[in-house]
């Protein structure tokens, strides 16, 4: 079990009386790109957000690279260094320039000197094609551009794993591609990624593995070829048919 980078063991989560996740057990390996699919309310975002303790699990265990996910401050600090997160709503800091958004965490957490942090941040911005916008404020950018900056910002802390929580759901259709291209490039570089998404075509193309959540449980765990092309479950086929239109 310890061979896995992330282990989730019999995890339960309630929101009030609503049982969001039911005895979920799964794992994620280094270098693997996993896509988590499922209908709204199936618990996929909650599962992702529990990995870096933005949500707490009510029972069960989560271990990330040997770090127990709990409320202990030392664990939390170590955990959040390991995991980078990209949000549906980008969540860029509106009062900071693009460059400061990316360089803030290295300067504060790793105590990197401003000049070094800025240099590295510019490299990351170049990687997501945003270096020309480094001195702009987030409000002046399109959604797709903001999300690319958010990806650079998460990468700035050199995480081992990148978590994507519906990274394209808040974007206009014409901007989805530029963000997906950046994520695709990242996947090709060997980054371990867990992506919650509604983009079926993207999941199929980029993921090594599809997790399908249904009513708080992992209903399927399959390679994309099997999941999309040899799907036996009527329910999942209906889901796929529904969302591909």
């Amino acid at each position, binding site marked *: 079990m310890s061979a896995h980078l992330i282990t989730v063991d019999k995890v339960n989560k309630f929101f009030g009386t609503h049982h969001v996740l039911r005895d979920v057990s799964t794992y994620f390996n280094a270098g693997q790109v996993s896509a988590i699919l499922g209908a709204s309310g199936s618990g996929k975002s909650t599962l992702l957000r529990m990995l870096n303790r933005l949500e707490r699990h009510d029972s069960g265990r989560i271990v990330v690279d040997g770090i127990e996910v709990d409320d202990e401050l030392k664990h939390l600090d170590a955990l*959040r260094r390991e995991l*980078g997160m990209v949000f549906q709503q980008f969540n860029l800091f509106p*009062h900071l320039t693009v460059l400061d958004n990316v360089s803030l965490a290295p300067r504060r*957490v790793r105590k990197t000197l401003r000049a070094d942090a800025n240099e590295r941040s510019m490299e990351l911005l170049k990687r997501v094609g945003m270096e020309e916008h480094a001195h702009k*404020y987030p409000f002046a950018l399109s959604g797709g551009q903001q999300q690319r900056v958010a990806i650079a910002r*998460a990468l700035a802390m050199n995480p081992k794993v990148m978590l994507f929580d519906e990274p394209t759901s808040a974007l206009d259709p014409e901007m989805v591609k530029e963000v997906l291209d950046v994520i695709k490039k990242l996947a090709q570089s060997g980054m371990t990624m867990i992506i919650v998404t509604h983009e079926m075509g993207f999941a199929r193309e980029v993921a090594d593995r599809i997790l399908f959540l249904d009513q708080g449980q992992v209903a399927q765990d399959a390679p994309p070829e099997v999941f999309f092309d040899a799907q036996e479950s009527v329910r999942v086929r209906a889901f796929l048919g529904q969302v591909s239109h």
Partner: protein
Amino acid sequence: MKITLPGWPQRWSREQRSSATIALASVVLVLLLWLMAIPLALAPEPIGNNAQYFAEGTRITVELTVVAGLSGIVIGVLAALGRTSGITLLRWVASLYIWVMRGTPLLVQILFVFLALPTLVPALRLDDFASACVALAFNVGAYNAEAIRSGLLAVPKGQIEAARSLGLSSFYTFIDVTFPQAFKVALPPLVNNTVALLKDSSLAYAIGVVELTNVGNRIQAATFQPLPTLITTALVYLVLTTVMTQISGAVERRYDVEGRQP
């Protein structure tokens, strides 16, 4: 009222304009405090012969406002943090403080600090100026707390999640992410409170602090000329609040990265 200056050079950035305004207004304020006796001395009696007296009163008023205003912001931040804290005791203490300070007259608070506090705690025997500062600071702090709290609540939860997920400690999350955004929202009501403070500092008159209103009142009582003295007093207040709103307006523009202000 907003005074429109002739305009800064076109190529100056928003920050440069803002810094220039702050610097200029601060210089004006210092010059005013330093040299205001000179133009006042040119006025006819009873102003001209009391120009130095007016200038001293104005200095005391500004000192009261600056000391109480800055402490009031610190107190306000602490009380707002207490009000939004997860710890019940802190929430309770902060709420009690705000409830008492907002629910009782400032004049009573000033008298209390000066007269009643020493009988309670002999070590807290303060002179009139210090008593006024303490009472004003805690009073404005309570109003500031609510302004800052509304700012803190206006910062979306996603901002804090993003900061925490980047590994920022709760301290840096507050310093770098929450507070700057909250402060921007809280700034207009904070300015309101500080302008009110400048004027409320006149209540220090009740415990014998020789500030501007006290000076004006003494002169009108001695000369039997209330009209010119009180008009002069009021005008000095007006000039002070004008300079103050120029500075705060510049601070607001500095934070306005989206260019939402015309």
